[in-house]
């Protein structure tokens, strides 16, 4: 029972962290919306978010790496390959973002010689990350749906129906029904 409770709270933590990372990704991918300074700071925070995401899934990462070349199922191998590509891509996006930074790094007193190549890699890798994140979400869609159903829709639904108020309400209704004059 304790283990089950712990497992459920892990799912809840994963759902919260992943949702925050996903929203941050959507915002960071729109520099017109945020402006360049927020884009850069949020990009750095996004990098930290990815490290957190990896730490939360460390068990899966180690287990799959160990059995990658032996008995890992095909779906796990595809997932692993996609995640590896995503890690390389996100690392490139964050690194090149640091290299072309105009607000965040200069604010910290660090500046690099700006380069056209880093800008080109940053744009290309960011565009690629959109597709890779889409595939990542797609491969975990069933988990997302179930977790949202259990931790968002069900609790919100139960609050909307006000279960505490229900017995009172039904008691009043039955009393009113008794007081009604009988037909015929």
């Amino acid at each position: 029972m304790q283990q089950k409770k712990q497992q459920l709270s892990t799912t809840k933590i994963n759902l919260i962290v992943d949702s925050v990372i996903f929203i941050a990704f959507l915002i960071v991918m729109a520099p017109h919306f945020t402006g360049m300074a927020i884009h850069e700071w949020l990009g750095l925070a996004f990098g930290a978010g990815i490290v957190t995401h990896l730490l939360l899934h460390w068990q899966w990462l180690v287990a799959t790496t160990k059995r990658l070349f032996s008995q890992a199922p095909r779906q796990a191998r595809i997932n692993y390959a996609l995640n590896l590509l995503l890690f390389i891509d996100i690392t490139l996006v964050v690194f090149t973002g640091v290299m072309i930074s105009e607000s965040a790094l200069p604010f910290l007193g660090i500046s690099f010689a700006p380069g056209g190549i880093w800008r080109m890699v940053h744009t290309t890798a960011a565009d690629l990350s959109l597709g890779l994140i889409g595939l990542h979400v797609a491969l975990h869609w069933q988990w997302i749906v179930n977790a949202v159903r259990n931790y968002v829709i069900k609790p919100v639904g139960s609050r909307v129906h006000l279960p505490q108020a229900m017995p009172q309400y039904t008691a009043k209704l039955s009393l009113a029904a008794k007081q009604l004059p009988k037909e015929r």
Partner: protein
Amino acid sequence: MQLLGRIAIILAAALLVVGIAIGLSHTSYLQNMTPTRGEFAPQSMTGGTAGNTVARTRSQDSGDSGGRNREFGREGHNAASLFGIVQVIQNLLIIGLIVLPFALAPRFMPGRKSGGSGGQPPA
């Protein structure tokens, strides 16, 4: 301690990617692909146009930020705009289009068992 070790492993893997990226950036093929304006010149290329480029970009760096932004094609990006939400919606739609076939697939394959919500999802 274990957590720090894991973070170190992740950062080491990231550093490996960065190292490869820097190594590749110095190859002649990628050097030729880069635009000439605002180009990053490695320290070994001191003479000729590369040196001039570095001198030009550094002088612009010391000037106003508007000039630097024009140089690197980031004009209009510096200020936040509410109209930029279109970009967010556009990206969300692209991700939605990628996810859609995967979300609809179980409906057309009733034999497939759906995954549970408990436990740790695959990374």
